[in-house]
């Protein structure tokens, strides 16, 4: 078991797409579909420098959210939940050529064709210069069965996230 409630981890591991929201300097939420990756402690997203405005917004304001709402967007069974995870994001782009590559195996697991494209990075070189986004979860909203006509369960994630299962549930 990792740092988050098991059903949420399952959703993070199986979801092919999430709605990732950053906040602009003007305080406006800006949302993009992205592929969520999870290593048991931290949620990762990544973005090419071609589509890097979101990385600039994170630098100005690290507060983000990750919503997994498309229950059919998996390679297996439909997701049993919808979740929104609020958290603090950090961008790692010291070396946009290599830094992000540590999450490549997890990306390939969800999107196998990436392996082929990665080998041919000469075809689209700027796409493979990327920033890695690391999100430390703070609060999780869970809608059982994906039903948002019922209030969500809210799970506060303890600051010492590293402690497996740390957190409390309300709502």
């Amino acid at each position, binding site marked *: 078991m990792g740092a988050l409630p098991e059903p949420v981890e399952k959703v993070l591991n199986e979801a*092919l*797409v999430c*709605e990732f*929201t950053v*906040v602009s300097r003007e*305080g*406006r*939420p*800006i*949302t*993009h*579909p992205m592929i969520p990756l999870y290593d048991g402690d931290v949620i990762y997203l990544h973005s*090419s*420098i*071609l*589509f*890097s*405005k979101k990385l*600039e917004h994170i630098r100005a304001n690290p*507060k*983000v*959210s990750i*919503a997994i*709402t*498309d229950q*059919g*967007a*998996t*390679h297996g069974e439909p997701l049993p939940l919808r979740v*929104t995870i*609020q*958290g603090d994001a950090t961008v790692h*782009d*010291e*070396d*946009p*050529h290599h830094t992000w590559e540590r999450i490549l195996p997890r990306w390939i697991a*969800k*999107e*196998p*064709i*990436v392996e082929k494209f990665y080998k041919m*990075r*000469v*075809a*689209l*070189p*700027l*796409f493979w*210069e990327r920033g890695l986004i690391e999100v430390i979860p*703070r*609060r999780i*909203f869970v*809608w059982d069965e*994906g039903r*948002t*006509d*019922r209030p*969500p369960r809210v799970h506060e994630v303890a600051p010492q996230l590293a402690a497996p299962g740390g957190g409390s549930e309300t*709502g």
Partner: protein
Amino acid sequence: MGVRPQVLEGIGAGYSHAVIVVLGDQGYPVSVATAFEVDVARGVVRLDPPAGMEAMLLEGRDVNVIFSHIRPLPEAGYDERRYVSVWGPLDRGTDGRLELTPEESQSWDESKVPFFQYSEITVPQAHRYLDALSGRLGRRVRPRLAFFWLALRTTRAPFLTATVIPVLLGVVAAARAGGWSLGLAALTLVGAAFIHLALNVANDVFDTMSGADPANTRPTQFSGGSRVIHYGLVSLPGAAMVSAAFYLGGIAIGLYLAWLRGFWPLFWLGVAGVIISLVYTAPPLRLVHRGVGEIAVGLGFGPIMLLGSYYVQAQRFSLEALWLSLPVGILIALVLYVNEIPDRESDAEAGKRTLPVRWSKEAVIRGFVWSTAAAYALIGMGAALRILPWPTLIALATIPLAVRVTRGIRESYEDPYALMPTMAANIKLHLFTGLLLFAGYLVSIAI
């Protein structure tokens, strides 16, 4: 200000649910999915109010709502990527549902803007990001490629078939006429290849300077240049130096061959080749901007290269070598001609008035058909008049490929990505016709 009705219609037709996003307490965004329907006539999106969010979804509040779709593909990942993100104020309808009046939108649909094009449109953002990152880190951060791939991309070495064919044909025609030297042939090939690579890189330098490459947001594997300068993989001065180095190497080899095999004829051929390759895109002449770039390429990679290669071996010119160079020159000019089709809008924007820029679709297709017919007629007539050996008639076997290319141009004229197989087939048309001419010569030598 509002979004176009087409945006609303697209939302209504293409998405399973909406995700409402607002800023919650402590400044974190909160996202919640809900059902929706679009009222195009009123310009609103009607949203089912999610439970437990009443405190955040207040009337008059500006929100972001995103509609997103993918289709999972277990073996590959997913496709059918599209999304629409809209911003606007929320109101409460008479039936209690929420009503969003979108005022701004941002979207991408890969069926309308292919991913490669989307990635080209955003190149300036990549540069802005790297500039900011460089400032933050206190060192220059550039995009990178492994040396082999960077060299391959910068020089566009796979296009060297355009050089290999005329040089080989010059050698084999000379061999049939008397004799040949492997060493001289190899040196000719290397020298010609250097000039070709120099030309490729110089072309990118001048196309970057003229704005033709940056303006092109629909490049393909075969068109739009190498883009290494535009992407920041190689600096403009760096590319100019690479080009100059190849020119110097090619010119040195050319002078050496001229010194060995009879100076002035080879000297003047070499001068013509280098000048044509330079003024092809270089100001002030910029032949390609004036609608004669295709002829320049046909001359350079046809008569000049083939006659030069022939002369190095035979130390004389011949009608046979000149005749043989004509279909080869026409077919290589047609490679450029077809590759210019997808670039025509950005070329026009940069003042690069190639033939596809100047001509209508039908005129371009007619030009291709008549030119290929002329190339095959030259091969047929050359054999009939006994200028070329009769086994070279085997090169007519590529006529079906020429028909396929013609059909491909007609069917995919407006879509650069759909035109890619046709551009590849057209390169094969030059390559295979050249190789079959070469094979015809080998047969004629053998029998």
